């Protein structure tokens, strides 16, 4: 069996199985945890503080005015490369075909040349992000294996994808196989590292917002 056949075949099956298993495990295991009983009186009605939770999802997506000067650059970087990643993953025709064949749906994509430009920009931003993490003293102190490996595996997917599209670095089927393998590794790693923020971020903001709102604080 050659590498491409493995990566697209059994490798993908195993990776997807672990992905679904891991993500469900983590979500269920925290969703079923008890929220510590609040003994204070709620300042708002239940419906109001649930809405407060939903509002928090939106309001915490943008920095407060006082902090923009200090955190603005980091926020901008983060948003930009996330948008770039989503654009490349969801609007590149071979990806649409891949996801489409998994999900049974299809949607229009962007011209390949536009996607190439977006992915090069995203790659550059990714390098900038690593540079910041490594040079900033506080970030360096806080960073662990999870941070670096999650960065590395996402970067590997992007780099191998660009190499495969540009046909640089070897025979095409090898480049494609390596790209798909790196996606498989990403899927396997996903539930066990910080990439789970994709599933945590909105519930976590909503819960925090709801709790604060119950206490009468705005978020």
């Amino acid at each position, binding site marked *: 069996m050659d590498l491409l056949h493995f990566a697209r075949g059994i490798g993908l099956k195993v990776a997807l199985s672990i992905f679904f298993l891991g993500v469900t495990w983590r979500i269920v295991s925290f969703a079923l945890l008890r929220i510590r009983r609040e003994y204070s009186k709620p300042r708002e009605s239940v419906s109001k503080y649930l809405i407060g939770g939903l509002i928090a999802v939106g309001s915490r997506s943008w920095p407060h005015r006082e902090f923009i000067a200090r955190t603005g650059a980091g926020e901008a970087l983060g948003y930009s490369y996330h948008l770039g990643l989503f654009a490349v993953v969801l609007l590149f025709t071979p990806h649409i075909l891949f996801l489409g064949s998994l999900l049974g749906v299809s949607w229009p994509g962007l011209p390949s040349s*536009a996607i190439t430009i977006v992915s090069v920009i995203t790659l550059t931003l990714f390098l900038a992000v690593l540079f910041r993490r490594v040079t900033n003293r506080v970030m360096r102190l806080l960073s662990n294996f999870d941070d670096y490996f999650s960065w590395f595996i996402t970067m590997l997917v992007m780099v191998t994808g660009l190499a495969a599209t540009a046909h640089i670095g070897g025979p095409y089927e090898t480049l494609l196989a390596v790209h798909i393998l790196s996606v498989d590794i990403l899927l396997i790693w996903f539930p066990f590292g910080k990439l789970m923020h994709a599933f945590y971020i909105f519930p976590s903001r909503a819960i925090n917002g709801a709790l604060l709102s119950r206490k009468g604080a705005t978020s």
Partner: protein
Amino acid sequence: MSRLSEIAVRVEGPTRVGGLGGGVQAVLSELVGMLEALASHGQCATIDLRSLPMSPHDRIELQSALGDGEVQANLTADGVSTLRETALCGVWWVEHRDHEGKLIAELIEVSTIPAILAASLIDVAASARTLRERLSVGRNGSERTDHATRN
């Protein structure tokens, strides 16, 4: 932001001052060496144009750089091939085509005359035999006297 595909591609024509395309320069440099070898010790050489990564524009540039000479020969053997001497004496542009006119090989040959044009001595001997037979048959059944010359 305009897409890459919307940016018009402009091919720079031969009006470039003095300069030729890189591919053409390389071929011409090779031809200099080959011509000198032919002149000094009669060594022939060939360049297969199919093996060179030349754009259609480069090919036109090369043709105009070599120019046209005094001799053009057509070879009809399983299709028509044209062998054209360029303005450079000893440099021949050879196009082989099959019976459907499809180009099957394109070469630049550096020689006094392309080897394929010269008659092979074996074929010459065969022609002599054939002609001799034809002549003796044509002599109204009279006895042949040149037994010794027949093989």
